[in-house]
């Protein structure tokens, strides 16, 4: 059943369009305050370098992340989104990251269904002690998005032109 649906999918990705020269993707990073945001701070304190494409938004918990935020990001400003929370079992709010994980999987499936490549939205667990891991995650996400190219259809300028 699922494969049938997949065959009929119309992708909104436009790999045939070539990215403009010097194009750099914008990645929206939505991080929970207690683990991942603290982890990203540690990346800074340890002076670990990573690509400058990510723009970080702080939320109290990954469970605060409404699917709306991901959709809005892709619609307007970002070429990709990274959501990051505490490791399973380590949530500052006891169980928030479990809700986040389930909600994220559903959102990812939905966005996938409407034609976004699955690498456009990514999820990770980064603890407050994992500065190097945060850099690694950002490296990977940036690389993935660079491979995919700009999100031509849903960009602010496209809206503005219409």
């Amino acid at each position, binding site marked *: 059943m699922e494969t049938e649906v997949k065959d009929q999918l119309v992708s909104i990705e436009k790999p045939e369009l070539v990215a403009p020269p010097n194009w750099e993707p914008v990645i929206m990073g939505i991080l929970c305050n207690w683990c991942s945001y603290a982890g990203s701070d540690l990346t800074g304190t340890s002076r670990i370098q990573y690509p400058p494409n990510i723009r970080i938004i702080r939320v109290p918990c990954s*469970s605060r992340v409404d699917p709306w935020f991901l959709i809005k990001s892709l619609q307007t400003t970002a070429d990709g989104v990274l959501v990051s929370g505490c490791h399973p079992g380590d949530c500052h709010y006891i169980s928030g990251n479990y809700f986040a994980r389930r909600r994220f999987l559903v959102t990812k499936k939905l966005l996938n269904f409407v034609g976004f490549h699955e690498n456009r939205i990514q999820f990770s667990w980064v603890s407050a002690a994992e500065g190097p891991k945060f850099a690694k995650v950002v490296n990977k996400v940036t690389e993935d998005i660079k491979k995919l190219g700009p999100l031509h259809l849903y960009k602010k300028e496209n809206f503005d032109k219409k």
Partner: protein
Amino acid sequence: MARVGVFVCFCGANIADYVDVPQVVEEVKRIKEVKYAVEYKYMCSDPGQGLIRDAIVQNKLTSIVVAACSPRMHEKTFRKALSDAGMNPYLLEVANIREHSSWVHQKDKKAATEKAMDLCRMAVAKSIANEQLHEISVPVTKRALVIGGGIAGIQAALDIADARIPVVLVEKSPSIGGKMAQLDETFPTLDCAQCILTPKMVDVASHPYIELIPYAEVLELQGFVGNYKVKIKKKASYVNFKTCTGCGACWQKCPVKVPNEYNMGIDKRKAIYTPFPQAVPNKPVIDAEHCTMLTKGKCGICKKVCLPGAIDYEMQDEIIEREVGAVVVATGYDMWDPTPYEEYGVGRFKDIITSLEFERMVSANGPTNGVPQRPSDGKVPKNVVFIKCVGSRDEAKGIEYCSKICCMYTTKHTILLHHKVHDSHAYVFYMDIRAAGKGYEEFVKKAQVDTGTTYLRGRVSKIYKKGDKLMVRGEDAQIGQVVEVEADLVVLATAVSAPKDNPELARLLGISYDKYGYLSEAHPKLRPVETAKAGIFLAGCTQAPKDIPETVSQASACAAKVCGLFAGDTMKKDPMVSTINNEYCSGCQNCVKVCPYGAIVTDEVPIGHGSKELRTVAKINEGVCQGCGSCVAICRSMAINLAGFTDPQIINEIVSI
């Protein structure tokens, strides 16, 4: 129209070297809501804060953006600056251009500057949607729970109780005292452990502000800082402590003999027992596993001889509840089991004992009346070999860390051996002698001279039997040769390990633990007694191996933290909590299901204005809400918002770049 002020910090060279700060200021000035923007060397300094205060007053600003270090660093500082200028402190936003830009893009100044500009734009956009918020006052239950009645728990309980704050002290064994009650003398002063500990134990029992609950375990902890509810299981002791006089007739007549835990199994106790003569409370309990009356229904002698009639074979476990505002965890440590050291013949040779067994033997109230004896034939040993680092600093067989106390207690053991058996000789196999502490190095030096102990630097490779002696073969690294020592008794300085129940306890308290099972502190240097969960503190070896002075200091530090927490009648709480718009709420109660704190309940409101018919809506208890925002994201009708992280604020951030 919003009037935003933006303050960009150089942070000395930390930001300015990698981000073109004046250019960021120029760029920010183009945003139409920004009415004032300026850069300064150190925004967090007093003149920097003064700049913010003056600008607020002079430019009638409605919200403030500080582009500097992480909000986790100085958000509080800048909020205070806003308050001082008469502005609501929650109208502040911090753009993190140091940890998130200048420090991580040091090779690309242009990109770092552009990113800093974006971060400023996002913060400006968010700040426009900021609302005035006010701190919430929450009532505090001024009672502390102390888990564990060793020296750490005792000290914490006494210090808190001395500040006239009621304490509930829960101890899992029948008596408080912990490991320290098993020690003979303590380094580096050779005070008798009992002499300094038992008065404190008695103080605990008689203190008007301490409720001592022995033979009990914590089952459940609910609530949040200042307002915890704890469930405690009082294990059935089968002895009514109120009527028992502690006369001891029961355990003298009890026919069942069981290895005595207090004496490390060297002698026997009865099935009805007090752990040791100075136990507090000094009331016996029945060991349900071994009592024949409880297991087979035969005997009943203790009931017959008990004149006050305190024995009750029908007694059941009892679950009690207490309300507390803070928790001190002091569950101590376990001795590491040396079984993996097969080459030492652990388990095969009777005359190899652990250091705590040796401690009990040389103890005046111990099973051998203070004279060490060989477990095999009861003879007094002349040549005793002490092996240090058994389990400690051994990645292959034991644990990686240094147990910290073994060097010192082994030195103490050589002295005690010398005191008890004058013609004895001690050999110590060691890796290093770690004697950092007040008077510790002097203690070791003096002991080496006074006792004439032979120190051999190296590891033991094998122990084997020769006649009734043990041959200890090891390396003396200082002469580079294999040495063999003939020993009557071998004492293993076993490592300190985390209590095996710690992971389970950590889960029920909602705090974290490390890979060894020690409970984790909030910050290894600056917050060593707090956990990441507000209102839960750590004392003693449950956090990491420690000696007695350190344990006592940490316990007193916990007490100070608890007293500080209880200093006011109410506690100030961040106003970042969820609010419900009743007009939108459909009463689906999805939010009730996801709330990890049970902060959301249902309420009935009239359907329309003046209507008598009611409908269900959700209602949030501000005092309980911790502001995670789970309910906001789950709400289909968008009736819930989280102050400080509202939908408009976050969407503004997203669309601003």
